């Protein structure tokens, strides 16, 4: 399947990006994920919400195989993630970490990293593409030659989003991309991400603790607590008419969110 096909599901193609069945994850004696079954929509914007320690990060890491589950299955586009060539899977499923890590050098060096890592599979990024990627992430082209280490937290986040896009992924996973940002900067980033999805049709899965973000940008919401799915469904339904008391309580508690 080509990248273009993967993005815009044709009539006969699966509408699910990730399909998880009975996924369990353990570390030592702790159970982090306990029987997760989910279907995340292709081309959609999924918000993973839930209290701290619910297992949101642990779940996100399974989607591009930074970890494997202790048991259960994870499929992407109808195929087990374990069947993809691992490096190929990771290029198709970008991951933006909660704490951005900049590689040595300038922002440009960071955006050229994927090509350096796989010369034949990832085309080199020219000046125009670097400018375009930075702009997609909400930065202007003058950032290309700034030393990455000197950027602010928000700018690093944006560069790491642009960097995740350099492999032309079908899916972008984001772990609390706005957690460390001022509300204003966070709003701009969310706007950027929503636009990015609309223009490219990329599937987004975002962990967030800011409910307003889930409300504004998400098309699908998954509420996680203590390693289990409390509720999952269309954003409008979950956000306005949650069936579960736990979700309603979590959403109400979050009304006072700074954002």
């Amino acid at each position: 399947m080509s990248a273009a096909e993967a993005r815009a599901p044709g009539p006969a193609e699966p509408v699910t990006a990730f399909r998880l069945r009975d996924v369990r994850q353990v570390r030592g004696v702790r159970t982090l994920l306990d029987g997760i079954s989910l279907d995340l929509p292709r081309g959609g914007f999924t918000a993973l919400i839930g209290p701290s320690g619910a297992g949101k990060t642990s779940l996100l890491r399974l989607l591009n195989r930074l970890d494997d589950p202790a048991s259960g299955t994870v499929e992407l586009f109808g195929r087990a993630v374990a069947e993809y060539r691992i490096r190929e899977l990771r290029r198709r499923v970008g991951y933006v970490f909660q704490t951005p890590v900049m590689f040595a050098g300038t922002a440009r060096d960071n955006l050229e990293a994927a090509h350096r890592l796989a010369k034949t599979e990832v085309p080199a990024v020219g000046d125009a593409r670097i400018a375009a990627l930075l702009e997609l992430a909400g930065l202007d082209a003058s950032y290309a030659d700034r030393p990455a280490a000197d950027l602010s937290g928000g700018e690093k986040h944006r560069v790491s989003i642009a960097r995740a896009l350099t492999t032309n992924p079908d899916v972008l996973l984001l772990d609390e991309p706005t957690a460390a940002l001022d509300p204003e900067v966070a709003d701009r980033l969310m706007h950027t991400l929503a636009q990015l999805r609309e223009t490219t049709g990329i599937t987004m899965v975002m962990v967030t603790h800011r409910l307003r973000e889930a409300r504004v940008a998400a098309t699908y919401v998954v509420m996680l607590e203590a390693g289990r799915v409390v509720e999952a469904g269309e954003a409008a339904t979950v956000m306005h008419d949650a069936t579960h008391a736990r979700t309603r309580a979590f959403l109400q508690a979050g009304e006072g969110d700074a954002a």
Partner: protein
Amino acid sequence: MHPFEISWLRLMAAAALVLIALALSLWQKLGLEKGLVVGAIRATVQLVAVGYVLVWLFDVDRWYLVLAVLAVMVIVATLTAARRQSKSSGDRRAIVPIAGVAILVGAGLTLAYVTTVVVHVSPWYNPRYLIPLFGMIVANSMNAAALALERLQSEMEARRGEVEAYLALGATPGQACAEATRRATVAAMIPAVNALAVVGVVSLPGMMTGQILAGADPALAVRYQLVVMFMLTAATAITAAITVQAYRRTFFTPAAQLKPRAPS
């Protein structure tokens, strides 16, 4: 010229020098008394025993006994290098085999080259040359392996975020931890590189000093010392490279995942 004899009585006089350190420890409450006394006794016993083993080994003149002694040196060096390596997300059970192979190959290749190409030892197993040469090489390989293990462990711990960021971008494990392996290799080689720079200026190497004291021609002692320095550099490089490249693999799963932190 004949070296001046050191009688046992005179050796006792030399041992009195340790009393100075002992006095300092008592006066400044350094708590080193036990270490000093035990250390001095151990050093004496070990060296005297080694002396007897060497006398016996030179006497019986059997190649397999010489190889057995070399093997024991590799084993002791391996266990010493592997000891004191702290908890890690790498595979701790792999440390002993990795250090063993790295020391054996690094020290063995170097010894083979020196005794065939440079010194032309005859017979090939002549213990008078092989044992002291190998002792120096193995000691350096041991330090290189210990430094490489320890540094790689701490770099991999400190760079988890960077390593995973590279993996998430489609890097191979080797690419993802390139900075960690580079730094660990440098750390293991720095002592050998520094030793090359300061030898003869800051430090007068023990072997050369010993040879001269024992009556050898200083010019020959210098040449032997140069051979030793070059051979230690090679052994260090080989051992460091093997240790780092083998050990870094144990931090990853076959699916190019960084293994979780070791539970505390």
